Structures are given as structure tokens and as C-alpha cells.
């Protein structure tokens, strides 16, 4: 075997090992976090941890329910805001707008995706928190003092603030995936609909959406998973009150990632504390892996059915 051939084969082996490394990385992360959260699972029932709301590390109480509910509030609000916004924007960009406009807007959306989460947090603190405190909260909470609006938290650091910031953060991802899915609908299908006298919106509604809804669902799932794991920005604006179930969009919420981030300094000092926090990270990991497998799985199936 000559040297050129030899080099080629060696490179092949190394590259193959790197591929194996990346694949095994996922399992390594799962195993590593599971292993570190074992101590608490050995002492306590997983059900007790998930459904108890009392978080008192010093007394050995590690209930995650409050954080899980906080997470659900924040990502619920973010989804309600971001999904219609992303679907409409993506539809506009790929079905209605001139190609030139799309070429101008796409880099802007890319830039929005590239901004650091901390910057979103700063923006939330200086812009969204006062907006919620001074306008949204007095307006909604006083006019409609019932279920999702009634609250006595007048600081502006609330679930809705986190939801608004998160909605802006997940829009770029959802817009780009939905746009791609919509553009993959065959051109002939649109032409057939337009030729029958349908308006553009009717074509979008009955032909484009009908053909691309699995992809849109996938985009929403991936957006949700992104929102689920977002840490710093939410931590800065959502209020984070311990041992508290938010009952209104204006109540403070304390999502799981924020809990993990907030405990980094103290968690080695109390027994089981680090295991509880890493269990929270493990839950986060499992949920985001499941969401991503479903989301990318749907997109992969669409791609394969087309080729």
C-alpha cells in the first residue's frame, strides 16, 4: 500500500471515530446526568419529587412541582404568542412577499437568532418589565380580575414577561422551519388551486397548510423544546419566587432551567442538593431529547417522502 492510500485509510478511521464520538455524546450526557442524580432517586420516590411543591434543600425537601408548573406557564404563554406570529410571518415571506423583501428580511431574522440570550434578558428587564408593570398589568388585571389575569404581583417580573421574551427568542427558529416546509409544497398544487379561481389566502388555507401541517407541527414542537430549555433570559425576567404556584400570567414563575442556574454556587454544600439539581437537568434533557426526536423525525419523514 502506498503512502497516499495509507493516509486516506487512516483519515477514514479517524473520521469514523469522530462520528462515533458525536453519536455517543448523546448517550454520555444521558448517562452522566442520570448517574449524578442517582443518589436522590435512591432515597426518594420519583413521584414524590415530581409532585411535591416544597423546596427546602436545608431540610432535605426537594419538590420540583412548583418549578414544573412555572415552566409550563412560561412556555404556554410563549407558545400562544409565538405560534400565530411565526406561521403568519413565514407564510407572508414565502407566499406573498416579493423575493427582494424576503432577501432583506432573512438576514434580520438570522441576526435575531444569533443574539445572545443575556441580551434578550437585558432587553426584557429594561423594556418588557416596565411595559408589563405600567401598561399591561393595570389594563388587564383591573379590567378583568378573574382567572388568568388576577394577581397581586405589581413588580412586572412575571410569567408573562418571561413568555414575551421567550416568544421573541423562539420565533426565528420556527419561522425558518415553517418557511422551508411551506416552500416544499409543489408549485403545481398552488397553480391548480389558483386556476380554479381560489384567492391566494384560500390557496394557502386549503392547499398549502393542508399539505404542510405535519411540518408546521414539527416546527412548533422544536420551538417548544427551545423555549423549554432557555435559561438566562427567563431567569432575569420571570420573577422566580420559591415555593409558589403561579395562578395568573402576572404571578412570578420559577422555571426549571432557572432553578439549575440559580443554585450553581451553593449546591455542593448540602447533601443531595447537587443530585436534586442534576435530576432537574436530567428531566430537562429527557424532555428536550424526546421533543427533538419527534420534531426532527417528522421533518425527516417529510423529506424522504418527497425525494
Amino acid at each position, binding site marked *: 500500500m502506498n503512502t497516499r492510500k495509507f493516509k486516506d485509510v487512516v483519515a477514514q478511521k479517524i473520521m469514523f471515530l469522530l462520528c462515533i464520538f458525536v453519536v455517543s455524546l448523546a448517550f454520555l*450526557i444521558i448517562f452522566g446526568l442520570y448517574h449524578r442524580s442517582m443518589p436522590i432517586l435512591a432515597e426518594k420516590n420519583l413521584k414524590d419529587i415530581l409532585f411535591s411543591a416544597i423546596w427546602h434543600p436545608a431540610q432535605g425537601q426537594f419538590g420540583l412541582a412548583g418549578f414544573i408548573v412555572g415552566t409550563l406557564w412560561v412556555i404556554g404563554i410563549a407558545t400562544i404568542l409565538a405560534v400565530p406570529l411565526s406561521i403568519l410571518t413565514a407564510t407572508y415571506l414565502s407566499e406573498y412577499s416579493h423575493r427582494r423583501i424576503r432577501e432583506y428580511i432573512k438576514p434580520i431574522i438570522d441576526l435575531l437568532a444569533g443574539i445572545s440570550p443575556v441580551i434578550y434578558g437585558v432587553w426584557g428587564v429594561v423594556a418588557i418589565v416596565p411595559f408589563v408593570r405600567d401598561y399591561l398589568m393595570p389594563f388587564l388585571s383591573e379590567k378583568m380580575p378573574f382567572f388568568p389575569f388576577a394577581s397581586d404581583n405589581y413588580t412586572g417580573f412575571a410569567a408573562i414577561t418571561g413568555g414575551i421574551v421567550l416568544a421573541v427568542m423562539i420565533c426565528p427558529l420556527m419561522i425558518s422551519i415553517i418557511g422551508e416546509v411551506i416552500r416544499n409544497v409543489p408549485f403545481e398544487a398552488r397553480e391548480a388551486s389558483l386556476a380554479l379561481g381560489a384567492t391566494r389566502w384560500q390557496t394557502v388555507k386549503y392547499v398549502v397548510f393542508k399539505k404542510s401541517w405535519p411540518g408546521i407541527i414539527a416546527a412548533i414542537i422544536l420551538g417548544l423544546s427551545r423555549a423549554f430549555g432557555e435559561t438566562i433570559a427567563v431567569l432575569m425576567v420571570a420573577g422566580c419566587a420559591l415555593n409558589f404556584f403561579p395562578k395568573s400570567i402576572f404571578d412570578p414563575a420559577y422555571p426549571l432551567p432557572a432553578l439549575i442556574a440559580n443554585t450553581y454556587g451553593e449546591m455542593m454544600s448540602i447533601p443531595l442538593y447537587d443530585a436534586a439539581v442534576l435530576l432537574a437537568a436530567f428531566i430537562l434533557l429527557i424532555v428536550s431529547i424526546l421533543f427533538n426526536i419527534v420534531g426532527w423525525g417528522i421533518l425527516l419523514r417529510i423529506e424522504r417522502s418527497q425525494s
Partner: protein
Amino acid sequence: MNRRKIEENIFRCFMVLSTFMVVGSLALILVTIFLKGFPALNLDMLIKTPKGGYYIGKEGGILNAILGSIILGIGATFLALIVSLPLVFYLNLYVRKKSKFALIVRFFLDVLWGIPSIVYGAFGFTLMIFFGLRASLLAAMITVALLIIPIMARSMDEVLKMIPFELKEASFALGSTRLETAVKVIFKQALPGIITSILIAFGRGIGDAAAVLFTASFTDSLPYSLFKPVATLPLAIFFQLGTPFPEVQERGYASALVLTGIIFLISIVSRILSKKFSKRIIK
């Protein structure tokens, strides 16, 4: 006007409105950061390290965090590049087009890409304990590298997929091996895209706070050793905003402006470089 036309117009209005809201929120973010940060920004902040009592309003700057972030970003990007570049060459040159293996690796990259950065941070923390490391520049570099490998590899993969098949065939037909084709032909052709991918990953690495929270810790001194804690810009912003002192919070806004400026600069540089290098590629 009939009902269909009205519906058409209503939804068109909604679409334009939501596009404006998405684009407008970016403008709003940039304007807010600029208006808040610019008055508080001064040269001292950029060229000094925090003196005693910096976080209660005494003098100093955030040079430690700026340098720390840049060094951390460069190191992590380098580590990620070592893994990603050969990986995508393998997926695009060494295996068959419809291979199951490539499909699996790509799917894992997608899934890894979706894992939140705080989870990478927690994993980095467990690795640190496992190897007996303390929170340090090295631990942070490894964690951030793991975080940006999927980002970099996925976007490089997109670039390599776009390379015309004929180019590979021409190179093989001249008798070159797959490695030679990769290094001498495909790499040159894909260089503009590869540079963009590297800079995207660099920007993400520099901006991420959650992954370095456990692994980098924080320090007031300049980064000088791989095995010592390092200050990062996102965390500096986070800590400064968390203090109750208005002067320090203002510096936090100024630091946010610096970080935004760096990310902007990266995006501009990537555009210029990819234009410059695309002169040599075969179209």
C-alpha cells in the same frame, strides 16, 4: 366586495403586521440596548479590570470579561472545528449518499443541537467532577465546544451538500484519493461557507451564559491560565444587572452593548470574509 376578498385582505394585513412585529422586535432590542448602554459606556470600562468594590459602584472595567469571553470563544471554536470538519467530510465524501450511518449521525446532530445549553453546563459540571477538575477556562472551553459542535457541524454539512457532484467526480477521475479530494478540492470550494459556519458557532459560544455558569466560574483577574477560573461577558452582564446599585446596573447595560457590538462585528466580518473567499470558487 365579496366575503372571499375581505378574508384575503384581513389575513394579508395580519401577515404584514406579524412580519413587522418580528422585524420590529429586533430593532427594538438593538435600540433599547444602544440607548441604555451608550451613555454608560466609557474607555475605562474597556481597558480596566474590576478594582475592589467594583460591584458596589467603585471604579474599574470589564476587560477581564471581554478578554475571557474572546479567549474562551476561540478555544472552544477551535476544539469544535477539530471534531466538526472531519466529521462532515466523512458524511459527504466517505459514505454512500443514502447510507444509514450518515442518516443516523445527522439525526443525532439534530437532537444534540436541540439540547439546552444549561444541560450542557450541568453535563460539563459532572465531567469536571469526574476528572477532578476545578471550574476553569479549560472546563469551560470543553463544555462550550460540546455545545457548538452540533451547530457548526450542521451548518457545514449544509454547505458541503451544496457542492456540485461533478467536482468530486472530476477529482476522483484524476486519480486522487478521497482525502486529497477533501483537502485540496472540496475544502477550497466550501471555504466561504465553512468560515460562515465557524463564525456562527463562535458567536453562539461567546454569547452563551448558561453553559459556562457552572464550569467557568468568575474572576476579577485577567485570564492567564487554562486551569484558573475565567470571567465571561454574558455572566458579567448578568451579575451587574443583579446588583441593586443603579451605577452598576448602568455598567451592565454598557456591557450588554459591548457584547451586542461583538456579535454584530462577527456577523459583518463573516459576510466580508465569505465574499472575499468566494472569488476563488468554481461556479
